[in-house]
């Protein structure tokens, strides 16, 4: 599989571009300038992706809900994101009179900064990672943890009961699901033997025949992927886990009192964190930028990464359009009584997998344990929950 | 100041003193807990600094101490704040001047 120079160059085109640009500077500034260029690329590229995703979501949810979605601005409504951006920028920025102004101002900034920082360790293609940290995964998760603080800041500083309620709900939910999130990444770390995301991808970037060694294709990996995706959805406050901003109950949750550009920042940050979680999910379980089949490696790695991310985002949108919102207690019960034990069991199974050695035996045993646990725990948690036919109390 | 270690240690000492002052002069129990967290952090800074500038960094002793200390601090915070909430429920206050009864 000797890749032709053309494809190699195409694969590394952004690295080459950076080196070419940095080459104009004196040698002393080159490393710093390289990092700065990378940061600029991230700050530029991902909001662009955000625009695409927003459009995709509005169109997709519209289709699911049997309506058109935006179709006025530009051809097929394609220019809608630009119109939205302009609207957000020129709207008045209203701060409530009794609000804690400083904290109110800082909250979106903290949120945006931490969300952007998480992208620093995400490898978007071969050699394309801003900071190849030894503790990349830990960094990513630490940055995710800081967002909770900004949620609290936003909710508390607004002096609004909807805001504070939304913040409390959000924090409770995010803390609960963060535990699950971290636990499901730990099994990957156990097998890959590293916290570095590039190493984790490298560990998956090999093939049996034409098929890749992605972790999702193992019993523990599939289970981990499942728990990670669910926890990721909850971590980003996406439907069906969007009680913190459930508009039917508490208006818009912790960002009720934000308007104009600050609101846009919250909006962007939510989608960016969604993208970053999708990226991490792809990195951990779907082989990151590696190709799905060995004969497709000639296609540039960053294309694979972004297509996986977009695929994952499509699933996010699909789920949002399909499932109803959960109640707060259901959400907590689900996290602590189902996901957490299951993730812990998955850790155990991963250890079993690691120490059982090669052979079909470990496939059978690990799959059996996980499937049995899933079924039993599902049955147990569904017990005493009486599902009858839907009743319309007021509509009849 | 010639030695980098001394700088870190002094910062840690100052932070420790600040934390202690917070624990001593504030009336609110939660603030006292914040002060204790600051003191623990100052100790962590000490540990890391000693690890970094000590003779055998590859033995990782100071680092391990710091990591375990972080874990213990998390447990301490959870239990401490649980106690504060419980006390608040009983006495309807978190001000330490008023919490001096020895029985619930």
């Amino acid at each position, binding site marked *: 599989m000797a890749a032709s120079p053309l494809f190699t160059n195409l694969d590394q085109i952004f690295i080459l571009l950076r080196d070419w640009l940095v080459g104009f500077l004196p040698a002393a500034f080159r490393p710093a300038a390289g990092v700065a260029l990378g940061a600029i690329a991230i700050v530029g590229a991902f909001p662009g992706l955000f625009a695409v995703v927003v459009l995709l979501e509005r169109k997709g949810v519209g289709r699911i809900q049997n309506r058109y979605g935006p179709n006025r601005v530009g051809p097929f409504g394609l220019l809608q994101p630009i119109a939205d951006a302009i609207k957000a920028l020129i709207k008045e920025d209203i701060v409530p009179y009794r609000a804690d102004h400083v904290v109110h101002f800082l909250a979106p900034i903290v949120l945006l900064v931490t969300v952007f920082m998480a992208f620093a360790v995400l490898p978007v293609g071969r050699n394309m990672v801003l900071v190849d940290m030894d503790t990349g995964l830990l960094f990513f998760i630490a940055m995710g943890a800081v967002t909770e603080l900004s949620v609290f800041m936003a909710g508390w500083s607004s002096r609004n009961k909807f805001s504070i309620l939304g913040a409390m709900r959000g924090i409770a939910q995010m803390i609960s699901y963060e535990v699950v999130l971290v636990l499901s990444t730990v099994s990957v770390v156990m097998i890959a033997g590293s916290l570095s995301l590039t190493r984790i991808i490298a560990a998956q970037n090999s093939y049996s025949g034409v098929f890749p060694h992605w972790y999702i294709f193992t019993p523990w990996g599939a289970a981990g992927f499942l728990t990670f995706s669910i926890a990721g959805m909850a971590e980003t406050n996406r439907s069906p886990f969007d009680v913190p901003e459930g508009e039917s109950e508490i208006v818009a949750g912790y960002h009720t009192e934000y308007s104009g550009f600050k609101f846009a920042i919250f909006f962007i940050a939510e989608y960016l964190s969604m993208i970053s979680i999708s990226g991490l999910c792809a990195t951990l379980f779907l082989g990151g930028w590696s190709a799905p089949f060995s004969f497709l490696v000639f296609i540039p790695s960053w294309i694979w990464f972004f297509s996986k991310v977009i695929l994952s985002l499509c699933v996010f949108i699909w789920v949002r359009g399909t499932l109803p919102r959960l109640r707060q207690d259901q959400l907590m019960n689900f996290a602590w009584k189902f996901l957490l034990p299951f993730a812990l069991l998955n850790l155990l199974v991963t250890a079993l997998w690691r120490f059982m050695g090669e052979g079909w035996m470990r496939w059978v045993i690990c799959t059996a344990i996980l499937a049995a646990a899933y079924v039993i725990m599902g049955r147990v948690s569904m017990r005493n929950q009486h599902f009858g036919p839907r009743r319309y109390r007021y509509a009849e | 100041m010639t030695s980098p270690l001394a700088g870190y240690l002094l910062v840690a000492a100052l932070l420790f003193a600040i934390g202690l002052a917070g624990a001593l002069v504030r009336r609110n129990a939660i603030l*006292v807990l914040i002060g204790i967290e600051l003191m623990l952090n100052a100790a962590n800074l000490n540990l890391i600094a000693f690890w970094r500038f000590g003779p055998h960094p590859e033995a990782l002793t100071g680092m391990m101490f710091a990591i375990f200390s972080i874990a213990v601090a998390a447990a301490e915070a959870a239990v401490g704040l649980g106690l504060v909430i419980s006390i608040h429920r009983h006495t309807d206050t978190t001000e330490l001047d008023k919490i001096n009864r020895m029985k619930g």
Partner: protein
Amino acid sequence: MIATNPLLLYQFGNIPPPPQAWIVRWLSLIPVLPILAAGVISLLKQRFRRLSSGLAIGSLSGSLLLSIAALGHVISTRNLMLYFGFNPGIHDVVNFTWFRFGASTVDLGWVLDPLAAVMLVMVCFVGLLIFIYSVGYMAHDENFTRFFCFLSLFAGAMLGVVISNSLLLLFMCWEIVGLTSYLLIGFWYQKPSAAAAAKKAFITTRVGDVFFLLGIVWLFSQTGTLLFYNHGVGSLEGLALVNLLSQHAGLGLSAAGAIALLIFAGAAGKSGQLPLHVWLPDAMEGPTPVSALIHAATMVAAGVYLIARVYPLMQIGAAPHGTTAALTVVTWVGASTAVFAALIAVAQNDIKRILAYSTISQLGYMMAGLGLGGVAVGMFHLITHAFFKALLFLGAGSVIHGCHEEQDIRRMGGLRSDMPLTFLTYAIGMLALCGFPLLFSGFWSKDGILEAAKHWDISKGPLYMLVFGALLTAFYMTRQVCYVFFGYWRGHEPAHESPKVMTLPLAILAFFAIALGVIGTPAWPWFRAFLENRAATFDLHGFAEPGLLELMLLSSLVVFLGLGLGWRLYGNRSPKPEAPDVLERSVPWLWKPLRDRLYVDEFYGATVIAFYAWWARVADWLDRRIWGGIVAAIAWFFGLWARFNRYLDVDWVDGGFDKTCEELSSGGGLLSRVEGGRVQNYLRILAAAVVALVAILLWSSRP
């Protein structure tokens, strides 16, 4: 010696001694199974009805199977030995030491011989039928599980009595039997009469048991062992008996005779013989299956069985065809009980009470049989009586059940058509009890006793008494059956037939009430031969013995006379329930004392109980006046002393102590200002102390 010891027999016959048969080694399982079942049932809650009854019935079925195996083993061994021409005195025993004190040991053990084997099968079989019957009879009782627990415990203990080879083990089981009897009579303890009856039964039998225990202790002190059979050195075997005979106990009795009389006192208590019979009629307060099982078929027979078991002791010193003082006493007591109880039974109106007096009377027959003719005669009547009396009681239970808990025979009548199956079986039982000629087992067993009485040399008194008893028996049973089954219905609600689970045991028992007679006819006296270790032969010439036919004719005549008299007086009359009895109208001076049970209870009330009441009053007076006075004086003295002490304490000791305490507490107040519960104070002191410590350390470590 060869003849009596099977082990020696095997040696001399050059046959290798066989390993002890498994059934002998596992014989103890027979009582243990029901006792275990009782233990398990006692742990069950009330709602496990099916499980508890199933456990009880299952365990007793197991015991029955083992018992049949034991009987089979005994029969086959005996046949083998008879074939070799030896007189097989079979006593397969398993003995072990329970505990030892000093030089002597207390041994326990169990024995398997024809007597025990026959009794085992009888107890298990009748017991099993009664268990099954109880499932139906007690179906509506909320304490169903408790009932079966007690029943199982009783069955186990009774089987223990049967197999025990040690007088001590027998006594222990005997007492458990007494206990369960007490528990079951008082089963419906909410009824004051039941509770009183239970107490009465327990205390009355205790009187006999005290003598029994005395006998046991005497026997142990004389022979040093309580084992019956122990390869020649047991207390019922050669040497020990001779020894006992040579001892004199005064009043012209040998030690053997005295001990035998003491043991008989125990047996009389359990079997309701004359002076101690008063508890048995009252015991009918218990549930009917209990009456059938304990107070008719098995437990009361335990006394008879005990006499049969220690028969060598009773018999020792008698000349051939002669008798001993002990056996004479047994005979007279038995015969008078038979007549006495039968007389009372004539004038009773409670269906179960009649049967209870009939039981006492029949027990008298058994005792008389033992005294007159030996083990086989008495035991044969015991076995046949167990079946037909159980049948009668269960039939009475069925009647009571069908008549909605009505027990007064004057309020029944005409049940012949309402409860045909019960009537049929009851009639069979009644005819067997009366000794209806030839067909029924009761005839043959009673005839054996009468024949023995006829041959008794000392007096013809018992014969006349027993014949008179037979007449009375036929009369009162006829009276009862006429009241219950003939005439027309005098109760309130219509009667109904009992369920299958109750009638099936009746049918089985009825079959045996007829068929058992086969093994004891003069032509083929298999039972007697079996118990006396002879070969039985079938020979119609058995009837040709001089005087036998005449006797059979006489007893048949007596029975017919009784039946006819009864039918003449009561048949199909259906008097009003409130109307006086036929006999009461014609011979009131005779009727009244009979109805009032010949005033035995009143006599005891006026003598024994009155004496105890008087004695209790005396003790009470002593307690209150003499002892109470002394105690009060001592208390007064100590009160004085205490007052003096208080003065010392309050004014001298306390004063100083209080002062010290005040000082201490004010000092504590000072200290407590430090421990004010303010955490920040603590922290402050801690930090200040740290500062001081570090400063001292640094200062002292200066170069």
